[in-house]
């Protein structure tokens, strides 16, 4: 049987007397090329099956080996343990370590030890730069980059999820290992199809927050093979921290407006949810968009969320906290970009959002590293993965109920340094939906055993 890679799949052609490709599990007929196909990720399984059946194969799919020359720092105990667990699981699976604990180094060591061409998938352009820099620092050959205007393929290539989706049909046979950074996004932001289109038998997922049910991540990458939480490493590989919840009160006018908007929304929401028989939020939005009342309710929802995003109380608290920690590197997190821009405009601090281009962002982060600027404000870009060394203070002005997002945000300031004690403030408006958000975030964190209490 002849096996060739084409557009993210393997094309199977029968030789005289060989196994009929029609009998291969999962094979599908392609009328265009007049042949049978299986997804590229089935390569290893297919090769094993054919070898077991003593079928002679002509396999044109052979991922490249890569040269040595790695210069890696020594791994810490938990990084070695994570790598050993991953190897023991057949070089497939997810390593879950807290933000700032050095997941990247685990992946670099995995690539070096396997010695095969590797593709690293990352969610954002910021992370693309960061990974390319990290790889270039310890491997002497050119690093490929796919995304943010680059399309250079090399034996070790970093690609954004979006670019990988476009490129996987062309280069899916070139890599023996795929590393998925922020692997909890597999199945959503990172389409599962990208992994289907890659031959790579070795797969390493990295995340600080593995989903409770792995689902598609488990099927395409493997199970969680090693996991540690913040508390396992706090005071060791991570800085100790204290988390303060700062209660905020609305002004009288704000409170009245909040109640009015919330009331307008709740009336329609309860009615529609009852009528729809327990619909999801998405279904509610869809149904509400069809009526004038529904649209008004959605407008009210948006308006009260904007109000809670940055009311006068948060404004004052933020100024006070920034003054208290003047000179310390501080990250300010908001619920949305509009609030991030409002804060940036008011306090003349740099926003880091998806609208800020690559060069400007790199320059800003460099200025932050050197201490030339001491505060950055962001809604989402700073949430995940971004390597911001030595940030000491995080001020969470707004966010969602997501515990996962909270862990990612907290992790931004836990990079260890001698004598460092990170401080995290969470601003929450009392007697509003934000109280429930805080409760759910805490519950989620406690469930995940990622935070050891100590809320002040």
């Amino acid at each position, binding site marked *: 049987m002849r096996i060739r890679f084409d557009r993210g799949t393997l094309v199977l052609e029968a030789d005289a007397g060989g196994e009929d490709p029609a009998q291969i599990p999962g094979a599908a007929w*392609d009328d265009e*090329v*007049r042949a049978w196909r299986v997804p590229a990720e089935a390569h290893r399984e297919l090769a094993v099956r054919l070898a077991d059946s003593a079928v002679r194969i002509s396999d044109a799919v052979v991922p490249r080996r890569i040269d040595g020359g790695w210069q890696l720092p020594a791994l810490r105990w938990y990084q070695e343990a994570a790598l050993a667990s991953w190897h023991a699981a057949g070089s497939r699976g997810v390593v879950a370590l807290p933000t700032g604990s050095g997941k990247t180094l685990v992946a670099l060591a995995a690539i070096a030890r396997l010695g095969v061409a590797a593709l690293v998938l990352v969610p954002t352009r910021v992370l693309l730069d960061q990974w390319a820099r990290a790889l270039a620092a310890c491997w002497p050959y050119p690093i490929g980059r796919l995304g943010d205007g680059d399309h250079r393929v090399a034996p070790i290539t970093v690609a954004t999820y979006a670019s990988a989706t476009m490129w996987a049909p062309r280069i899916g046979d070139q890599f023996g290992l795929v590393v998925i950074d922020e692997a909890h996004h597999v199945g959503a932001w990172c389409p599962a199809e990208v992994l289907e289109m890659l031959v790579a038998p070795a797969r390493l997922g990295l995340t600080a927050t593995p989903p409770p049910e792995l689902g598609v991540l488990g099927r395409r990458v493997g199970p969680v093979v090693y996991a540690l939480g913040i508390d396992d490493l706090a005071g060791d590989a991570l800085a100790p921290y204290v988390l303060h919840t700062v209660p905020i009160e609305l002004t009288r006018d704000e409170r009245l407006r909040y109640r009015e908007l919330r009331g307008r929304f709740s009336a329609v929401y309860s009615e529609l949810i009852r009528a729809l028989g327990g619909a999801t939020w998405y279904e509610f939005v869809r149904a509400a*968009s069809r009526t004038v009342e529904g649209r008004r309710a959605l407008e009210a929802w948006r308006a009260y969320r904007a109000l809670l995003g940055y009311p006068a109380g948060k404004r004052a608290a933020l100024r006070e906290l920034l003054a208290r920690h003047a000179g310390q590197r501080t990250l300010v997190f908001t619920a949305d970009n509009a609030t991030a821009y409002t804060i940036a405009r008011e306090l003349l601090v740099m926003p880091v959002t998806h609208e800020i281009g690559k060069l400007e962002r790199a320059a800003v982060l460099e200025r932050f590293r050197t201490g030339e600027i001491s*505060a950055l404000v962001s809604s989402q870009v700073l949430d995940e993965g971004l390597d911001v060394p030595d940030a000491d203070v995080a001020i969470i002005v707004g966010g969602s109920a997501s515990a996962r997002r909270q862990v990612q945000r907290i992790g931004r300031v836990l990079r260890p340094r001698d004598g460092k004690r990170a401080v995290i403030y969470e601003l929450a408006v009392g007697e509003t939906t934000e109280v429930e958000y805080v409760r759910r975030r805490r519950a989620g964190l406690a469930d995940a055993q990622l935070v050891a209490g100590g809320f002040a």
Partner: protein
Amino acid sequence: MIAALQPAASRPPTAPITSLRLFGPEDEPWIDELLDLVEQSLGEPWRVLLERIEDAALRRSPTQVAAILGALRRVTGGRDERARVARKLRGKVLGHPALDRDARDARIACAAAELGLEPADVEGLLWADLARERPVVLPRGRPAARTLVGFANVDRIQRCMRRASSIELRVWSESTALVRTGARCGLIVVVSRAGSHDGDGPTLLQVTGPLALFHATTVYGRALGALVPLLADHARFTLDIHGDFPGGPRTLRVEPPVLLPPVPLPRSKSPSLIERLARDLERAGCGVEREPPPIACGAHVLYPDAAVVHRGVRMLVEVIGFSTHAYLAEKRARYAAVGQPVVLCVDSTRAAPSSASDGGAKGKNEVTSAVLRFCRRIDAAALMTMIEGLPGQDCS
């Protein structure tokens, strides 16, 4: 167990069919009202325009308004220049938090003095490249409502395509561009002639991607969307978009009349393989007809890339990307069946290994065909030699 014996795209759709609602001439009056607001807001930030639109009560859903505004942004463009200025200003002005009014004003004033601007200008330009903050401009004057309708329709159809796992497209006129674009985007395009075979029936294009053979997937949505602008050239077509849309699996149908703008296709930076071959052949004295008309062959259609006239012999040329033996054999049989001599130029890096049958062969009606393997560039001299050497071709 066999997952699927036929491509998903060729399976009879069981999902209900609904017509996709697009913008039409009836929308032009409210779009004109919206454009009035745009003109009133010239020079002001986009967020001011958005607030005006919200207050104006255009009696249209936010989605519809957003679609037209998206088309407007596409028509106006011009972000780059503003981004350069804003970036420079942000580098000078933004830094440590300015925690009181005086500190803030002093910093703005300092930057303004350095750049020879007024403080108010600095405030305005600081964010001039952000979507909601950039000023409203109409560099080419007020666009026609109909132009925005066209762009919004392209966007609407492409958005639906992004949720599609396959499409079926029936066209009653030239289908070559559609087939070639689909192939260039890495899609599987199965072409057949529907209805009568005398030329009146439509050409049916079943378009999907390789993974869609195994399960429904939206991963080819963007590639499928590349076909949409080409529909502007077709007076008559039926586009069925199969996918899992809100409310469950459905087929969305698009049929004329539909306003679509003639969107120029992105030009390739380097000449295509066939274009380079054509130039080489012309330099060598051959006549070359680029993209000759498709040839109907029973229920199938053949799309030669060129017709080459060398020493009085006319030979079709088709470039083949990925191929199997069965595919090549079938292709040659079809050309033979319609009585057209052909050289199939096969990419050796993506083709099945060469076989004894690659050379010249006579098919039905004594028509010849051959396979010319190439790597990166098709050798024009080799092609001419092959034409001369094919059995039945008298090139003397």
